[in-house]
Structure formats: structure tokens, C-alpha cells
């Protein structure tokens, strides 16, 4: 007989009893048949019931049977209080689902190792330095010649791998005008072999592809891209890919689950580093450098010597680099050379998304955990109240010999039942919410992508969570209930206040958590509102942005003609051209020197704009005038007020000149504009100068422009409606310009606040849930307490206590608890606020309204939640109570 048969017998207990009875009966029958007296046979056998019980317990898994009985009993208990049980399951499910969803996101983005060999031996090289405004900064981009030197220097102990950022690039698969976007990564040829990756098709890039610049025009597709772009067509090998004016031949497809080293972005195409024109430039830091220790090298002892060796090689390269620092002031050179090379573990990949969202996800995890804790406290209160109501039953069970362990098991199995139901619902919630939140990260046209598998890591976390919360909300009530002293209970109760004391403590805890959630939420919501309501200084209304590219470049006149053609389209109000949009992805700075003096330590940012761009953007001029058609760059410039204040303090800048670095052509300032945000809504105002879109080279010949953005003011409220026809118009002109992207200025501004909006939205959601749960908890506790104290209230009323006194009796200690919990919550909030400071915009934890909001919300909730109980207390009819007694 196996364990299985015992388990089966435990489940089918009745059937087993019948079988044993039949066997015992057949024994007696046999005896009678062999001539014994029936009475004597029965007597000789003894008590059949006893034999059956003994047999039954041997043939079943006893623990299971008692467990089953407990679960059945627990189920009946839950059914008896349907509303509270459903509320408990729902609130736990919401809390658990949120926790699991946040865990999935954090795990997928920050912790889950890349699907490569020896991921724990992978590090990224980075240098710590002093940044532009004296702040500590870290740069993890390197120049390829520097990388080559470093790679050769440590090749015995480690492999160095170059991998660029996954840039969203314009590509074409055929020669016609259909441009698409794909995430392109340049990687050194050793990346695939060192990562131990095998091709799904064809071959992967190899070290031989690094040997000479431009010698390996090969492309490897990621499996994901091959799947969704080519439907896993094996004939993709040999296809030609065009990027700008380069052609690449597809030679293979990467392994199934490898999506690059940049978590949050799925790389579509891998190209050799040697095929990028930047690879020969000494002064351009453009790709990451990963370090993979060779097998058998001990990280503990090898890393630091490696680091020092690499730092020395790189420092020597930078000191030697002749082109790196031409015309740069000595102070800046010293700052740039004073760096410290460091290794960071990179086994889980590396990406900006990780940097941007590490803290935010941490905060979301904290909020979800707090909501779960509040839900747990609620359920614990519910269990305590129910256990108190069952004190008689518990006393009876103990009196007839139930052990304490057995009673704890009885109550814990009810808790476990709740947790299991909640976890099923929670799993569904997490399955939906994790991808949903992920889809809100990043702009809709370029969403963050992460694999979110529900594998053993997630399951393990889920099971851990179930056990934890069962212990959290079940153990204490179970221990308390099982500690009942039967004598005291059967005498009429020992201390009727004790469950209430526990529940009051729970209220303080709950209010503290709730206050913390509200406090953090109001910080995030206020921060988001500040950011959203930040004055822009330009208008986003009806502005369509049409980003165009022109291969090797087209002369400004071609761009101007195209703008003219766009102006003729019905529905277009005005068209201007800028090098790139404000608040887009591009930012370029430039040294500023006045009267050929050495450049000042602070650079300025610039943007080339056509005449009329300022008025199209509704940026007014403080003084001076807009560019004229004949203005060229270098020559004329318009500056913003911060620029004027920085470089010409106390003077009228109109008519002054500046150069973009020493010995550069002179720009004469013709106008001054107010400040506008240039690249980031959060940053302080930067010095900005505008130059005419029409650029000329040092021989005064017009220079070609490779890319620019048409800024189009439309008549319609919805500028995107014109996108299709304008795209067509540009394609039909066949003048070398191609549309790379169409967006609106409003979307660019919105994209700036995505993270803040997401956190504010989720924080507000958690705050609402926390408030609701705390309100329910408060109501339940107060209601229970009034019910329990009916006798006391009735007697007090009978002896003439005024109503105000009854109200005070019922609510005083609860509001004390709320005040206590609130203070604790705010104290916790101040602690947490320091951790999230970097996520906030123009909001301080000490702002009065940040504190007032949670306080008011909690007080209001408390009032609403206590009202029914207070009314019930006042409604007590003393005569009725006394009659019952």
C-alpha cells in the first residue's frame, strides 16, 4: 500500500469505513458459519467500532484527513460570512497581484540574467568623473581605438566586447522609398562567441569581421525581428539591408531568446562595429565596453589588477589623443582626464531604462507591499473578530482534548484557503497588469519591451508571498484563539477587551501604512502636475513635426522648396524648418568664446532654424528681430535670455558677437527670446542660441543638410490628420528627401512626462485602494467594538450618560490610534521622501499641501467609516439590553 492509497483513502473516508465494516462482518459470519454461537462470536470479537477506528487510522494518511476536515470546516466558516470573505479575498488578491506584477517588472528589468553563458562574469566598463556643473557623473561610452588597445592589453585574462546602444534607425529592405525603423546595434565580432550563442540560421558575426574598417558589410538579425518582420523565412539569408548609403548582407539569425544586452529594448539587427564610420575616430565615445572574465579566472583576485591595467592603458590613450582636445581649455582637459575606471556587474544587461526606472519600480514595489500589508491587517482583524466570536467553540474543542497545534492548524487552514483563492485572482491580475504597466513605459511608438515569463522565479516569489501573508494575517489570530483557557471562557469570558486591544493596534499600523502611501502618492501627483503645468514658452497647439532625412544631404534651397510645397497644402497654416525639434532626442552643445577669448567653461546649446520658425512656435522676441531669408550660419544668431545673462551679464546682447570656440567665425546677435526648455522639461534653463537654417562653409558655399524637421502649423485641431497626405507629397517630389518620422510637438512634450505620469497614476491608484481598505478596516473594527460593548453602552445610557459621552467612549481611542498611526506614517514618509527626491520635480516633502492632503483624506475616511458605528451606538436601546441580561 502506497502513500497514494493512503491519500486516496483519506479523501474517500466513507468508502474505506464500509470496506472495513464488510471485512469485520465477514469475520463474524465466518465464525458463525463454522458453528459458533452468534452471540459468542460477537462478544469474542469485541467492539467492532474500535477495530474499525484503529484500522481506519492505519490505512489513511491521518495528517491529510485532519487537514481535509479543517479545510472543509474553514470553507464553511468562509461561507458563513460571505461578504467579508469576498472582500478579504478581493483585497488580498489586489495586493498580491500588485506585488507579483511589480516583482515581475523589477525582476525582468533589473535582476534576470541575460540568456548568455557565464552571465555572472560579465561587467561593464565605466568611468567616474566630474560632470559639467561640478556634479559627479559617469560615462560608459568609449572610443573604438581606445577599446582596441584595452582589448589587446588584457586578452589573456578577459574578453572585451564592444556593443553600441540600440538606436532606432531608418532602414530600407528594398531600394524604393519605404523606410522603416529598426533597433540597430553595432557589436564587436567576439560578442556572439564570448556569449556562447549559436545561430538559429546561417552564421553569426565573428572576430574576423572586425579586421578592417568597412570590410565586413554583414548583418545578423535577432530571432524576434526575423520572426515578426520575415515570418521566420529561411530565405532571408542574402537579403540586402540599406542604412543611409551603406548596404549590408544578411548572414544569419541569432538565437531564440537573445534580444541584445540592452534590457527594455529588443535589438533587431546586429552590425559589426567596424562598419560604423565612428569606429576610426579617436575622439568619439560611442559604444559600451563589456568585460567577460575568461573561464577559470577568479573574479575576487583578478578584477582589481585588471581594472588598474585597463585604466592605465585608457589614460595613456587619452593623453596621447591628439584630436581629442583641440581648442579645449586646459581646465576642461584636466577635468576630462581626471577619471576613475570602474567595473559594474552587467550580467542582467545594461540600459537607460534600468537607470530611469530603478527607483520608480522600487517605489511601486513599496506601495504595492504597503497595500498588501493593509489588506493583511484587515483580514487579520476579521479573523480576530471571528475567533473571538468562536471562543466558546475553541474552549469546547480544548475541553474535549484538541491539542493546541490542531487548533492552530484549524484556523490557519481557513487563512490558507483565503490566501489560495486570493492568489488565483491575484495571479490573473498580475498576468494582466505587468504587461499593461510595461506598455505605458516609453512613448507609444517605441514601447519598452521585456520578456515577462511566468517561470519558476515568479512562481517561487508567489508561493513565498502566499506563505508570508498566511503567517502575517493568520498566525497571530490562530495563536490567540488557540490560547483560550476553557475554564475562563466557559465561566463567561476572561478579558473581553483583549481582542479589541489587538485590533486597535492594528488600526494604528494600518493608518501608518495608509498615510505613507498617501504621502508618497501626493508627492508624485504634485510633482507630475508641476511638470505638466510648467510654462513652456512656446505653443504646442496644432503643431505637426515632420522629421525628414536626405541621405548624403541636400542643399538648404531644396529644403526650402519642400517647405514651400508643404505650405501650399490645404489645411496648412505655416511651415518652418529647424535642425531638430525642441524636447526631442537630439541635443548638441557648443563652446562659446567671446572676442576670440578661450571658451568659457559652460557650453551653450544650439538649434538651426529657418526664418519664421520662432513665430510658428509662438516664441516671442524680447528684442531685436527674426532671421531674414538671406541670413546664414555662421553670421547671425538669436539667443535666449539665459544665454544673454551668462555671456553678456548686464548688457544688451543685440549687436554683440560670439564664436563657437576659439578661432571660429563670428556670429552677430540679432535678437533675444525668452527661455524655453531645450531637451528636458525638468532641467533648469540653459543658454541656447539659434542660428539660421541655411549654413555656409568656410568658402561661403551653402552646405548640405542631412536631416531636419519641418515644423507645420495646421488649421485643424488634430494636426496628425494631415500626416498621410504630407508624407505622400514629400515622397512624390523625389528630391532626395524622405520622411523619417511624423509626430506632434504635443506628443514630444507628453513623452517628457511619461515616467512621472505613470508613477503618479499608479501611486494615485494605490492611494485610493489603501484609503478604501483602511476605511473598511476602520469601519469593521469600530462596528465590532460597538457590538461587543452594547451591554456597557446600554448600562451607561440607562444611568444617564449624555450622547456626547457615548460618542466619545466609542471613538476616542480609535481617533487616538489614527493620530498615532498618522504621525508614524508621516515620519516614515519623510524617510522615504529622501530616497525618491531624484524622482520629484519642484516638490518638497515639507510642503504644507503635501502633508495636508493625506491628513485630510485620512480624517475624512475615518469620519465616514466611524459614522455607522457611532449611529449604531447611539441607537442602542437600554431597556432592550437590560431585558436581555
Amino acid at each position, binding site marked *: *500500500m502506497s502513500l497514494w492509497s*493512503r491519500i486516496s483513502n483519506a479523501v474517500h473516508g466513507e468508502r474505506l469505513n464500509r470496506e472495513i465494516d464488510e*471485512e*469485520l462482518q465477514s*469475520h463474524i459470519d465466518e465464525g458463525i458459519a*463454522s458453528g459458533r454461537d452468534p452471540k459468542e462470536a460477537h462478544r469474542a*470479537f469485541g*467492539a467492532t467500532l474500535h477495530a474499525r477506528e484503529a484500522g481506519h487510522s*492505519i*490505512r489513511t494518511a491521518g495528517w491529510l484527513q485532519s487537514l481535509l476536515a479543517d479545510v472543509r470546516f474553514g470553507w464553511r466558516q468562509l461561507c458563513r460570512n460571505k461578504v467579508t470573505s469576498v472582500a478579504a479575498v478581493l483585497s488580498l488578491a489586489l495586493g498580491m497581484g500588485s506585488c507579483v506584477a511589480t516583482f515581475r517588472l523589477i525582476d525582468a528589468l533589473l535582476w534576470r540574467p541575460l540568456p548568455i553563458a557565464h552571465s555572472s562574469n560579465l561587467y561593464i566598463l565605466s568611468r567616474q568623473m566630474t560632470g559639467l556643473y561640478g556634479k559627479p557623473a559617469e560615462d560608459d561610452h568609449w572610443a573604438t581605438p581606445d577599446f582596441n588597445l584595452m582589448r589587446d592589453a588584457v586578452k589573456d585574462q578577459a574578453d572585451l566586447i564592444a556593443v553600441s546602444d540600440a538606436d532606432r534607425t531608418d532602414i530600407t529592405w528594398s531600394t524604393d522609398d519605404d523606410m522603416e525603423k529598426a533597433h540597430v546595434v553595432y557589436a564587436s565580432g567576439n560578442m556572439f562567441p564570448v556569449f556562447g550563442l549559436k545561430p538559429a540560421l546561417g552564421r553569426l558575426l565573428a572576430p574576423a569581421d572586425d579586421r578592417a574598417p568597412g570590410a565586413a558589410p554583414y548583418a545578423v538579425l535577432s530571432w524576434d525581428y526575423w520572426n515578426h518582420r520575415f515570418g521566420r523565412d529561411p530565405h532571408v539569408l542574402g537579403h540586402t539591408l540599406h542604412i543611409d548609403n551603406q548596404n549590408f548582407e544578411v548572414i544569419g539569425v541569432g538565437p531564440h531568446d537573445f534580444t541584445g544586452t540592452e534590457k527594455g529594448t529588443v535589438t533587431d539587427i546586429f552590425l559589426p562595429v567596424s562598419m560604423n564610420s565612428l569606429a576610426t575616430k579617436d575622439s568619439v565615445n560611442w559604444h559600451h565596453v563589456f568585460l567577460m572574465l575568461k573561464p577559470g579566472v577568479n573574479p575576487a583576485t583578478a578584477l582589481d589588477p585588471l581594472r588598474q591595467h585597463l585604466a592605465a592603458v585608457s589614460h595613456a590613450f587619452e593623453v596621447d589623443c591628439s584630436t581629442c582636445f583641440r581648442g579645449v581649455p586646459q581646465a576642461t582637459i584636466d577635468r576630462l582626464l581626471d577619471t576613475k575606471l570602474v567595473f559594474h556587474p552587467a550580467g542582467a544587461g545594461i540600459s537607460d531604462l534600468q537607470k530611469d526606472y530603478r527607483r520608480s519600480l522600487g517605489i511601486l514595489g513599496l506601495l504595492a507591499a504597503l497595500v498588501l500589508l493593509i489588506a493583511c491587517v484587515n483580514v487579520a482583524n476579521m479573523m480576530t473578530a471571528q475567533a473571538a466570536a468562536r471562543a466558546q467553540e475553541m474552549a469546547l474543542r480544548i475541553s474535549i482534548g484538541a491539542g493546541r497545534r490542531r487548533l492552530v492548524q484549524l484556523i490557519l487552514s481557513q487563512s490558507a484557503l483565503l490566501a489560495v483563492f486570493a492568489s488565483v485572482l491575484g495571479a490573473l491580475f498580475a498576468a494582466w497588469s505587468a504587461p499593461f504597466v510595461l506598455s505605458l513605459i516609453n512613448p507609444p511608438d517605441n514601447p519598452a519591451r521585456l520578456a515577462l515569463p511566468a517561470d519558476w522565479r515568479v512562481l517561487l516569489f508567489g508561493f513565498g508571498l502566499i506563505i508570508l501573508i498566511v503567517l502575517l494575517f493568520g498566525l497571530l489570530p490562530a495563536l490567540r484563539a488557540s490560547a483560550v483557557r476553557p475554564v475562563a471562557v466557559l465561566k463567561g469570558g476572561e478579558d473581553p477587551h483583549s481582542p479589541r486591544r489587538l485590533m486597535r493596534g492594528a488600526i494604528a499600523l494600518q493608518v501608518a501604512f495608509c498615510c505613507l502611501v498617501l504621502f508618497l502618492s501626493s508627492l508624485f501627483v504634485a510633482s507630475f502636475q508641476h511638470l505638466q503645468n510648467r510654462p513652456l514658452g512656446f505653443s504646442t497647439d496644432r503643431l505637426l513635426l515632420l522629421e525628414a532625412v536626405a541621405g548624403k544631404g541636400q542643399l538648404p534651397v531644396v529644403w526650402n522648396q519642400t517647405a514651400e510645397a508643404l505650405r501650399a497644402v490645404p489645411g496648412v497654416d505655416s511651415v518652418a524648418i529647424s535642425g531638430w525639434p525642441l524636447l526631442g532626442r537630439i541635443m548638441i552643445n557648443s563652446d562659446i568664446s567671446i572676442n576670440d577669448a578661450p571658451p568659457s567653461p559652460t557650453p551653450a546649446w544650439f538649434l538651426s532654424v529657418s526664418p519664421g520658425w520662432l513665430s510658428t512656435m509662438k516664441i516671442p522676441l524680447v528684442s531685436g528681430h527674426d532671421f531674414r531669408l538671406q541670413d546664414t550660419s555662421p553670421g547671425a544668431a538669436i539667443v535666449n535670455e539665459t544665454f544673454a545673462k551668462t555671456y553678456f551679464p548686464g548688457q544688451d546682447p543685440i549687436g554683440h558677437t560670439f564664436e563657437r570656440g576659439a578661432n571660429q567665425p563670428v556670429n552677430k546677435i540679432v535678437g533675444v527670446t525668452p527661455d524655453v526648455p531645450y531637451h528636458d522639461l525638468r532641467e533648469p534653463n540653459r543658454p541656447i542660441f539659434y542660428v539660421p537654417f541655411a549654413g555656409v562653409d568656410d568658402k561661403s558655399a551653402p552646405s548640405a543638410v542631412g536631416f531636419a524637421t519641418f515644423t507645420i502649423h495646421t488649421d485643424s485641431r488634430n494636426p496628425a490628420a494631415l500626416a498621410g497626405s504630407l508624407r505622400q507629397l514629400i515622397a512624390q517630389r523625389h528630391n532626395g528627401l524622405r520622411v523619417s518620422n511624423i509626430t506632434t510637438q504635443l506628443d514630444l512634450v507628453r513623452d517628457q512626462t511619461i515616467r512621472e505620469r505613470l508613477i503618479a497614476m499608479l501611486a494615485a491608484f494605490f492611494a485610493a485602494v489603501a484609503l478604501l481598505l483602511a476605511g473598511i478596516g476602520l469601519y469593521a473594527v469600530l462596528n465590532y467594538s460597538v457590538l461587543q460593548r452594547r451591554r456597557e453602552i446600554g448600562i451607561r445610557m440607562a444611568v444617564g450618560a449624555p450622547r456626547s459621552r457615548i460618542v466619545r467612549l466609542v471613538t476616542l481611542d480609535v481617533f487616538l490610534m489614527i493620530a498615532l498611526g498618522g504621525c508614524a506614517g508621516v515620519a516614515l514618509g519623510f524617510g522615504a521622501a529622501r530616497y525618491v527626491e531624484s524622482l520629484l520635480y519642484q516638490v518638497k516633502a515639507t510642503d504644507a499641501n503635501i502633508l495636508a492632503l493625506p491628513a485630510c483624506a485620512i480624517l475624512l475616511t475615518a469620519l465616514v467609516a466611524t459614522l455607522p458605528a457611532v449611529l449604531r451606538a447611539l441607537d442602542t436601546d437600554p431597556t432592550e439590553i437590560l431585558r436581555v441580561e
Partner: protein
Amino acid sequence: MAKTDALQGSLDLLVLKLLSRRPRLHGYAIMAAIASTSGEVLRAEEGSLYPALYRMEEAGWIRAEWITKDTGRRARIYELTAAGKKQLGAEESRWQSVSLAINRVLREA
């Protein structure tokens, strides 16, 4: 009462031994056989036989099945398993050494 005490601790041995000689017995037959072969000296208490049988069944020494006898009555019969044979050997040698030891004590005391 003295009769059952004599059985204490050796019921397993007797049942295993009986089943090794005469397979496929039901409970009553086992009891009757113990009584008759011991010359009515040893008599298993009828009610406690079945828990013992179930215990041995759980331990895997014997296995049981229901049969319908010629008389039309159903009975649950038992037989020895391989593990039961091994156990019988172990119990037998244990019994031998214990009774030897007891005999020695009786002789020398």
C-alpha cells in the same frame, strides 16, 4: 488474558509464518490457524487482528484482495509479498535469538 499476552510482539511473526506456508487466507482463517496449530494455546484477540493486518499491509509485507467464495460470501484474503518474506526471515532470527537468550537466563538463574 494470559493467552493473549503470550502473543504480545509476536503476532506479526505468526501471521507472516502462516501466510508463508498457506497463502491466501482471510482474517478468520488466520486466527483459526494460529489457534489450531498452537494447540489452542495461542489465541489472537479477534478485534486486534485486523489493525495488525492493516499495519502489515501498509508496511508492504502482505497484500490483500477481495474474493467471492463458493458460498457466495465476499472475503478479503491476504498473501505474503517479497518484502514480507524478508521480514519473516528477520523476525524469525530475532525470535530465535530472544528465546535463546531467555532460555539461557532461565537456565543460569
